[in-house]
């Protein structure tokens, strides 16, 4: 592979892997705190899936860029500005409604994203991976959508909390669909789909689910962004100190 292509593939894998790792970490914070025992099983299971996706993608990244020996170095030993995840996934969980709404937004996006990669991707190993990832993110999207409907269509209070969650996450959706020079290059090289190309399918599905929950579709023209360039929210530093603690305190420790 030419070095320019290598850089592109590495950066592209990193973006998706970081999104999954950070949302996986946030989701895992629910372990032991979920409102019912069933949800306490569901959320850590989803966190495990997300972290599993991140691990597999970091492994692919290490294969093509030998600066990093293994996936742990990428997950645990980078500095804050080296993480390329969306601001959306690093925000604090908030209440259960806010957590499932974000999961619904993200997993629905990823479902269509992997659906596109499955059809067209110049990197064979990622194309193969997407077949499996598509199935798993579809399941997450379905799980989360059921809660969005249940809570939106529940009591006045649960509906109010979901409306608050929509307002709370609204500013971060623009970044999810933001095209930049990099996404442009990825799409021209048939590596990754342009985020904007997924928007219509995403919107149709999200709108239909929100409608069932008597909730309004968010304004996605607001664009709080920076995550893709390594500029993160204040809360991200606290998240990393938790995520990286073991590897920083006991370098190279393993199970």
């Amino acid at each position, binding site marked *: 592979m030419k070095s320019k292509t290598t850089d592109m593939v590495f950066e592209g894998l990193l973006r998706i892997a970081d999104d999954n790792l950070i949302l996986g970490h946030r989701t895992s914070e629910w372990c032991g705190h979920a409102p019912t025992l069933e949800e306490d*099983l569901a959320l850590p*299971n*989803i966190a*495990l*899936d*997300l972290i*599993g*996706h991140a691990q597999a993608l970091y492994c692919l990244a290490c294969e093509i860029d030998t600066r990093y020996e293994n996936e742990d170095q990428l997950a645990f030993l980078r500095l804050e500005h080296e993480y390329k995840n969306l601001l959306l996934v690093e925000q604090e969980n908030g209440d259960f409604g806010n957590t499932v709404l974000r999961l619904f937004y993200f997993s629905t996006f990823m479902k269509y994203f992997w659906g596109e990669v499955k059809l067209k991707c110049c990197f064979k190993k990622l194309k*193969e991976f997407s077949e*499996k990832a598509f199935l798993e993110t579809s399941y997450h999207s379905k799980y989360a959508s059921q809660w969005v409907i249940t809570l939106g269509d529940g009591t006045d209070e649960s509906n109010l909390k979901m409306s608050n969650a929509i307002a709370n996450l609204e500013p971060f959706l623009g970044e999810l669909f933001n095209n930049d020079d990099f996404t442009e290059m990825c799409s021209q090289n048939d590596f990754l789909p342009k985020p904007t190309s997924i928007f219509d399918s995403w919107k149709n599905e999200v709108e239909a689910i929100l409608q069932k929950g008597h909730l309004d579709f968010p304004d996605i023209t607001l664009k709080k962004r920076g995550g893709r360039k390594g500029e993160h929210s204040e809360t991200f530093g606290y998240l990393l100190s938790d995520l990286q603690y073991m590897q920083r305190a006991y370098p190279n420790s393993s199970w």
Partner: protein
Amino acid sequence: MDKSTEEAWDALKDLTDPELPFLTLDDLGVIREIKRNDETHVVTISPTYIGCPAISVIEEKIVSELKKLGIAAIIEKSFSPPWSSDWISENGRKKMEEFGISPPHPKDAESFSRSPAKAVKCPQCTSYKTEKVSEFGSTACKSLYRCLDCKEPFDHFKCV
């Protein structure tokens, strides 16, 4: 198939799954291929789930089992085609039921759906009057059900 590859298949036949110890990897259809590559054997496995925590244990088990035969093995993970619950053997399904887990339905090739419309049978009393409690059970590969007749909760292996 050369002799050592045959021996390798034979040796791995009885290895069990760490999370479902009454099932062998063979029952689950996790081991897809064993290929001799000069001095090493490449064992291709299809993880049931990408993030399945049992995978690293499975890899270690395979490598150490083959080492006993003097066979050096490396593991390759394959996601294409993705592992399917249709790959679980008849025998595996029977064992699942015996251990109180309702086995997955055969996947409907025409309409892909993870929550089967088909009724799920209670593995305790065989009633079909059951309901889903949660999309997720004790592991990623199972969802949680309860029987409306005998009232027992049980795991249902997801159809994927």
